[in-house]
């Protein structure tokens, strides 16, 4: 043998000098596309998650056949030591599992096609009734056999597929559990077999019976067609936490000098005291029984309460009613609403029938609550202090059967939103009138507005 090697040496020197001239360097040849029969090309296993110990992970196994032939089964062995097919050990990656003794091949198909699984190509044929089982690590389920069989464990009637070199073969296994160590590579050894019988052979197959509870692997297999190694890796999860504070910005204001809303975004602007005088605009401004008179309060709400807000109005002061009182106890100008089944409803106030009511002109994302949900303009008509006589108002006090009235603990709900609000302007339009018999005096009422967010 030594002489033979010397001969080789001489021959090599000669040839090298002819081919390379004076320069030579070490090279490792690799194939990047199908050209080396036997070793499958463009092989990869895409994981749906790289999280250590993640369960229910999907593995997309894909490779190009290196040989034009028939394939009866595929072994995919997960190892921690090396992807080299033919290595006589396969160390179990801690925590890995194909999921069960009968792993699930998604859609029950092993497809082969000239298009890669990433290109969206439609499979030219489908490998029906694939079955799989595991072995090699006892209960670890580290070796997967995929085959075309009518019964579990690659038994029953089996068949093969005919593939040509360069065709993609791919299938998806679901329910996989990743190895438990983060940022750690592990490997898959892929071997295709000519028949199912050769794949599962108890003596010459990929995983002979004697090796099914150990890390031992045979160096060669009968019926091997193609092979290839793939490296995979687990990785840490990037966890980022950020906090958004719950916030609610609510304000109210009387009109500005021009009688319009002074509130700008996020309750900015020159707000005025929300105190209004309802009357004919004279000096003094008085109510009469011949007309309706109005006044406006402006509110604005901004909140990131994902379930919205409610705004309630609650009577303050000593009077026992929700309307206007001149003596601090009784309401000479009472709360006014329509009525339906004992509940207050929006209604037009008739001039000469003493009463006060309120209508909410809601902003974007806001819904007025009955009896404040009547039709109203929300803004005074040009050249007038008085709202249109057709505007509908209401006011919920103890006159009605409602438990959530102005005198209740939390007041009467004016409006609400179902979600967040961004500078939603809501106008409170008050309308009042007196009757011919309403005693003269100064009638007042005080209310507070309470906004409550649900986050």
């Amino acid at each position: 043998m030594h002489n033979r090697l010397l001969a080789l040496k001489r021959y090599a020197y000669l040839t090298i000098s002819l081919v390379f001239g004076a320069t030579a360097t070490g090279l490792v040849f690799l194939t990047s596309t199908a050209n080396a029969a036997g070793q499958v090309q463009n092989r990869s296993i895409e994981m749906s998650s790289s999280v250590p110990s993640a369960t229910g992970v999907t593995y997309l196994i894909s490779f190009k056949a290196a040989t034009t032939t028939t394939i009866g089964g595929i072994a995919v062995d997960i190892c921690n030591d090396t992807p080299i097919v033919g290595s006589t050990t396969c160390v179990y990656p801690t925590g890995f599992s194909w999921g069960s003794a009968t792993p699930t091949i998604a859609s029950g198909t092993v497809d082969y096609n000239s298009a890669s699984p990433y290109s969206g190509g439609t499979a030219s044929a489908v490998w029906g009734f694939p079955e799989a089982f595991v072995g090699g690590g006892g209960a670890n389920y580290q070796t997967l056999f995929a085959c075309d069989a009518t019964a579990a464990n690659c038994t029953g009637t089996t068949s093969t597929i005919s593939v040509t070199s360069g065709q993609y073969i791919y299938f998806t296994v679901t329910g996989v559990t990743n190895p438990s160590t983060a940022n750690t590579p592990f490997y898959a050894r892929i071997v295709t077999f000519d028949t199912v019988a050769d794949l599962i052979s108890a003596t010459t197959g990929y995983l002979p019976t004697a090796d099914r509870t150990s890390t031992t692997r045979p160096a060669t297999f009968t019926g091997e067609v193609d092979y290839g190694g793939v490296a995979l890796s687990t990785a840490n999860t990037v966890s980022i936490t950020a906090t958004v504070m719950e916030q609610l910005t609510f304000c109210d204001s009387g009109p500005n000098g021009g009688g319009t809303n002074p509130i700008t975004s996020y309750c900015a602007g020159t707000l005025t005291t929300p105190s209004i005088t309802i009357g004919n605009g004279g000096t003094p401004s008085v109510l009469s029984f011949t007309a309706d008179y109005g006044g406006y309060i402006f509110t604005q709400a901004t909140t990131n309460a994902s379930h919205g807000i409610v705004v309630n109005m609650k009577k303050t002061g000593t009077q026992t009613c929700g309307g206007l009182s001149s003596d601090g106890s009784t309401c000479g100008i009472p709360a006014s609403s329509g009525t339906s089944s004992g509940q207050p409803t929006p209604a037009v106030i008739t001039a000469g029938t003493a009463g006060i009511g309120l209508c909410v002109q809601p902003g974007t994302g806001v819904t007025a609550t009955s009896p404040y949900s009547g039709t109203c303009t929300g803004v005074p008509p040009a050249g007038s202090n008085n709202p249109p006589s057709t505007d509908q108002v209401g006011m919920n006090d103890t006159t009605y059967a409602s438990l959530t009235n102005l005198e209740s603990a939390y007041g009467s709900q004016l409006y609400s939103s179902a979600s967040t609000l961004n500078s939603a302007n809501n106008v409170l339009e008050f309308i009042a009138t007196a009757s011919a018999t309403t005693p003269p005096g100064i009638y007042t009422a005080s209310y507070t507005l309470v906004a409550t967010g649900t986050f």
Partner: protein
Amino acid sequence: MDKLKIKRLVPYMARNVQSLPRVGMLTVISLFGWMAVAVIFPSTTEACTNAQSCGNNYEVNEVFFGSGGGYGYGAGANSTCSSSYCADEALGETTVGNTQGGLFQAWAGFNTFRTPSLTFVVNSGNINIGKLTPTSTGTATTLFAVQTYLASGYSIMTDSSPPQNGGYTMQTPISAVSSTQGSEQFGINLVANTVPAALSGVSANPTCATTGFCNMSTVTVNSNYDQQNKYYYPSSGVDTLVNVSSSNSLINYTVSYIYNISVTTPGGTYNFNQVLVATSTF
């Protein structure tokens, strides 16, 4: 001869040829002019196992030229391996790195391994950005590094929903956009940024962690993530961040994150658990 130790006898060697029938003539051919050489033994019966390239009638493994050095091998008197270790020699090694054509690629150097590998390391740790406000931008960065060998490339995917607060998912832009305070945005990119200022100096373009086998021209960052000061994240949570078309030594990637909220961004704690998946094709 059970173990062929040509290395010690001739200035070139082929590893793992011992399993091939030793008949016929040894031929050295050039595949790439002066760049490459292959050792061919006529063979008709042996399985093509563990080779970097093979056909029905030939098999190519690692090929060696030079005055010394090499990848640890073998057993016996001339072995560079003990029962536990192999020595990789570097004497006279003058050229290292990768070259590739349309059909082949080659790694130069003595200390080349024949095992496909993928190294993927994502920095661990929980990042707490703290309180977000509509008038500021929350930022964070994290690092991951990838190295492959004997691969035709790899891709890095993100497979995680945008930050979530209970059942609410933070809004993401439909394309790469600038960071805008007061508008709800969650986005990432993989390049060096100057806006927001907090990312200046801590964000970075992909870089080689080591010299040698690193070819940044093969690295393609998805266009949604390679624009300075522009950020994107898919509402689906699934997207390819990086495609690399060759083997490379360790490349560091810095992911920059921005969080902007509006006044209506629901309050609460937003959690983002980003799963990065590396898939290498061999």
